[in-house]
């Protein structure tokens, strides 16, 4: 992307991000918050795609983040920021530990393995009524706050979610565009060659997998403290598949892709609300058209040939 194009894209992104404040409408805030939360899950999936692994367990990691954060805040009495950090650490640690084993598997087998893992995580929430509340989930999750600053009102929570998305994007960019990104790209472009020069591919993939779980956990924590209640089915494979569609629609090769996808797909059902009967059909047809005519996603239109 040229400099001018980058500036225009940044301005457009800022305008879209700030628009809900101008609209000042409660429902717009609500949808915008969901875009941020689901967009984060899509970013987490994006990370696994960057190491050539489709992980269908990201919804599960979001769930781990949601339950951990909810329990740490509600039952252990931690303030929200600490509960959030705790949830991130727990999810990342679980992913790193599992990654050592499951990342040795590649391709379709990895997708299937993580499909099972995602379902197993949800099953654990269902089966272990203590502490996870079984099918009813958890209620009475304390609303988010930063010290004395309450984030309970939608504008405040949206502002916070926006800041989190921004920070996550910065961190992910640092990972993908910096020296680690160089290593990851060289692995993606020529694995035998990179390996022959000493690259510990498993360690690198594990790092990215743990980072992806961390981002999913952030999404889960925001979700839990925004809604105030959670139940297991919100984190099943369906959530991951939605995140995958966001990546495809927004463009898989682009860091902004998953967010562009979330921006389109989260509000979409609201647009078609008047024609609920055709909602699924219209949704399916739009996806089909996108994949046929824009194989690199909507983001691919803006990005030209460059990578993040």
């Amino acid at each position, binding site marked *: 992307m040229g400099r001018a194009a980058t500036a225009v894209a940044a301005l457009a992104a800022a305008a879209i991000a700030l628009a809900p404040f101008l609209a000042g409408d409660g429902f717009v805030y609500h949808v915008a918050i969901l875009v941020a939360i689901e967009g984060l899950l899509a970013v987490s999936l994006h990370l696994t795609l960057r190491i050539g692994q489709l992980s269908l367990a990201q919804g599960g990691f979001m769930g781990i983040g949601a339950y951990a954060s909810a329990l740490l805040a509600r039952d252990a009495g931690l303030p929200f920021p600490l509960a959030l950090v705790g949830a991130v650490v727990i999810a990342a640690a679980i992913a790193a530990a599992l990654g050592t084993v499951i990342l040795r598997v590649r391709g379709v087998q990895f997708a299937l393995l993580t499909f099972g893992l995602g379902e197993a995580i949800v099953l654990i929430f269902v089966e272990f009524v203590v502490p996870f509340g079984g099918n009813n989930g958890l209620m009475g999750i304390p609303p988010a706050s930063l010290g004395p600053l309450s984030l309970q009102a939608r504008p405040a929570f949206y502002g916070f979610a926006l800041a989190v998305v921004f920070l996550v994007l910065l961190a992910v960019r640092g990972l993908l565009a910096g020296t680690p990104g160089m290593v990851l790209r*060289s692995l993606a472009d020529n694995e035998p060659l990179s*390996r022959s*020069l*000493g690259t510990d591919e498993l*360690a690198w993939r594990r*790092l990215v997998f743990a980072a992806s779980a961390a981002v999913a956990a952030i999404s889960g924590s925001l979700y839990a403290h925004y809604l105030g209640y959670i139940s297991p089915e919100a984190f099943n494979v369906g959530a991951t598949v939605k995140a995958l569609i966001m990546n495809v629609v927004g463009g898989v090769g682009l860091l902004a892709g998953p967010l562009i996808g979330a921006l389109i797909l989260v509000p979409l059902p609201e647009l078609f609300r008047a024609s609920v009967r055709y909602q699924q059909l219209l949704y399916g047809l739009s996806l089909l058209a996108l994949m046929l005519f824009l194989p690199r996603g909507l983001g691919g239109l803006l990005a030209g040939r460059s990578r993040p």
Partner: protein
Amino acid sequence: MTAQLELRNLSRHFGGIRAVDGVSFAIAPGRITGLVGPNGAGKSTLFNVVTGTIRPSGGTVLFEGRPLAAGQPGAMARRGLIRSFQSTMSWPELGVRRHLEQAALLRALAAPRLLLRRGRIAEARRRAARLADDILEFTGLAAVAEAPVATLPYGSQKIVGVAMALAAEPTLLLADEPAAGLNGAETLAMEALLRRIHRERGVSLVVVEHDLPMIMRLCDRLIALADGRVIADGTPAEVRRSRHFIEAYLGSDADAA
């Protein structure tokens, strides 16, 4: 003195194919060793097993007295055992200099935890840049430093393959058919380059090569494989006189020619 590289009864089977079948030998430090054998003898498979790229079906590999870590491709390379490939290998989009820098960086920053040490990245990048300049000069690639590797003549691409391995600072370099597909002049240049890598940079070499005159000039010891087994092992002159070698290798070669 411990051997630099030791193989004990090493095997690798693919289904019914015994690509490597009970190979044992030990290589002292500071040598150039030739590895020859007809097509399909198991030479490349041997390199793949020794470098940890694929698991052995049986047996042991010791590099500088320590065994190969199972299931950790890259671990041997991090200890200084670097291989080059029979086919030309490159990263699309990168020029020659960037290939050498990247090779040096990948060795220096092999695992994420290495990035945590303060100043490590900046130091590794500076070092990689110096090393790339040095090796461009050393290999005569300086003139094409900025050219994308895929656009170079085949002979130069083969040199880039060896140069990348060199940028990863090996103590032992396994070169898989570095002269395959090269014309007479290019082969002589490759031979001279390998000799200089050994003499001037103190790197030990194991060279797989089909060009018998070339490999016999180059190495102090020759190991011949056929059907995954060692059929002759000694000085080039000894191996040339060995009956097994003449039957299995020259025999089939003469038929083909």
